[in-house]
């Protein structure tokens, strides 16, 4: 007996993507693979209504999710880079997918009071001097400052406001970001801020991936009241 495994097709993107936009790369594809391997779980256990991709760049990830979930969910994408916002719209359009795009810094203009069911962020994770984060444009797509976590950490601090009671978040990190320390940090932030969510179970899983000599991990953090 064979069980059919759902697939997450990699969407097409424009061949003349602006030089200012992060071209889909190994990390993007590995994130798509990680999401694909979880599709059954996402569909059956999470049944996400509201999806948010932070730092959508070319838009391939959120477009793939939007195509897969179609009218069962609402997909939002944000990026700090205008050209990336435009590219995300364009990728959605080419693939006939519905994605609403907003230019902002992380989740700063969203009042998503625990309404995000599926959150994705492939952040700038390269270890750089802190100043480089402010450079904007393409530099801001990889410059992560000290430990490469300056941008990601700001978002992780808001998880307890963002994620719904039955939700999941996926974050790309590399060895230098100290994935084990991130798990501890998320947990501390959560319990410190999330008093009203005391009954919620919270877990993190780590998916390690290796490509050439870079080690990527996907930290997925599950927030759940059913599992």
């Amino acid at each position, binding site marked *: 007996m064979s069980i059919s495994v759902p697939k997450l097709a990699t969407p097409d993107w424009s061949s003349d993507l602006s030089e200012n936009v992060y071209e889909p790369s190994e990390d993007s594809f590995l994130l798509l693979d990680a999401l694909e391997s979880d599709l059954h779980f996402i569909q059956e256990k999470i049944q996400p209504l509201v999806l948010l991709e932070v730092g959508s760049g070319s838009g391939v990830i959120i477009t793939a999710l939007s195509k897969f979930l179609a009218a069962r969910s609402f997909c939002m994408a944000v990026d700090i880079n205008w050209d990336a916002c*435009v590219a995300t719209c364009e990728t959605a359009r080419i693939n006939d997918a519905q994605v609403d795009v907003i*230019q*902002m810094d992380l989740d700063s203009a969203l009042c998503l009071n625990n309404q995000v069911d599926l959150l994705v962020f492939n952040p700038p994770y390269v270890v750089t001097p802190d100043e480089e984060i402010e450079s904007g444009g393409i530099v801001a797509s990889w410059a992560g400052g000290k430990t490469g976590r300056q941008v990601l950490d700001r978002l992780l601090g808001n998880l307890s406001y963002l994620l719904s009671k039955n939700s999941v978040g996926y974050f790309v990190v590399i060895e230098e970001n100290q994935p084990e320390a991130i798990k501890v940090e998320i947990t501390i932030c959560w319990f410190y801020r999330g008093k009203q969510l005391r009954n919620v179970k919270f877990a993190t899983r780590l998916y390690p991936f290796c490509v050439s000599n870079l080690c990527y991990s996907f930290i997925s953090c599950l927030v759940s009241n059913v599992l």
Partner: protein
Amino acid sequence: MKLLTHNMLSSKCLKGVVTGYPLTIIAKDVKVSEVDFNQEFVSRVLPKLDWNVLWKAAERLGHVGELPQTLIENYENDPEFLKKVHHVLLEVEVINGELVCPETGRKFPITSGIPNMLLNDDEV
């Protein structure tokens, strides 16, 4: 920008702003397009939304149609009602215009359907 997104945007990140919600829409260019209707999605997403804010935004854009100002009960079993909600949530889009902070009057431009909510350093 769809009205579902508008329902979730605020200018609270501005220095001195308390709630910054809802943002006033000044629409210069509105597009209506057909989007697949999924009854279960609309009825499950409604409890997450501020109905009053949605209704007023739809009215402002001239698309409120026959939607009642107060949310009806038992809408789960009312596909006709849910279709109208679907229309204002997902089919009406602001392509060009502005979002205005209700407390400071700060304007955020919407260009090519994308609101720009970035702040200058001195506004944070």
